[in-house]
């Protein structure tokens, strides 16, 4: 691999598992179950949401993701680690995020967070 290619791919600050601890685990917990009534579980929702356009966009616009200090590349790597790790799906069962997709949608603020989530959960026939 040439030096140009190596320099073209930005180095990740931390590996995705560590970034999950630093950016998400404080609220969603070590197993992604969250806190009933306070923090939603991501276990049942991540993989289904990642399979259609509105769901993928929502995952990039929730405050913890959109406002994160991580780069677009780090965020894409984190989500691509989280979906199989917490959603229980193999890598072939979801479409991986790219840094470009992350960069495009995280900059569009989500105005009605709860209403958007309720609509998507209804669409997926999942509990709120």
């Amino acid at each position, binding site marked *: 691999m040439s030096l140009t290619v190596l320099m073209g791919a930005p180095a990740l600050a931390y590996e995705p598992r560590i970034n999950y601890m630093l950016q998400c*685990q404080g609220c969603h917990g070590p197993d992604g179950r969250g806190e009933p009534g306070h923090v939603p579980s991501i276990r049942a929702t991540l993989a289904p949401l990642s399979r259609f356009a509105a769901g993928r966009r929502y995952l990039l616009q929730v405050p913890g993701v959109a406002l994160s*200090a991580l780069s677009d590349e780090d965020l894409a790597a984190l989500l691509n680690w989280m979906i199989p790790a917490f959603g229980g799906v193999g890598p072939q069962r979801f479409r991986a995020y790219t840094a470009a997709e992350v960069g495009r949608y995280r900059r569009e603020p989500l105005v009605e967070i709860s209403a958007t989530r309720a609509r998507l959960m209804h669409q997926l026939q999942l509990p709120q």
Partner: protein
Amino acid sequence: MSRFDRWMEASSRSVARRTSRRGLLGSLGALLVGVAALPLLPVARGAEKSAKPGEAATDHQEAQDPTSCNYWRHCAIDGFLCGCCGGSASACPPGTVQSPITWVGTCHNPADGLDYVISYNDCCGKSSCGRCLCNRNERDMPLYVPFRSNDYDWCTGSSVANIPYHCSTARVLARAT
């Protein structure tokens, strides 16, 4: 010859008849070995440890005091140290509940030169401990970045660990790689 001299001679001869030079050397040797072996006994080793109950002693804990604000794990803690309140740097005191919602950061361990992921979990359910207040803010962010701020009372965001706030722990989750 005085009476005292005769008494001294008699008692010296009596001691010499009952003991031997080898016996004296043997006793002295046993005493020396015994003194040298005393620190190897489990009782002596246990007395040297300063770890709190439920917490394994490690090299870095022995190098620094976990009840000190300057302890490496406390680099971004804001509150009373649970080690001074009946718990430890990583365990809540009896009668309190650890809040599952918290904030997570990294601290540099000078003992091995590595960074570690630290979870600052508050212990809740009893009034403020009031001992060992510690407020260090490495990489702490303002309140408007809530998941990177140590100014929040994390006892309020949970259904199992309710207010009031008692003290704070600093648990090591992993090496920051």
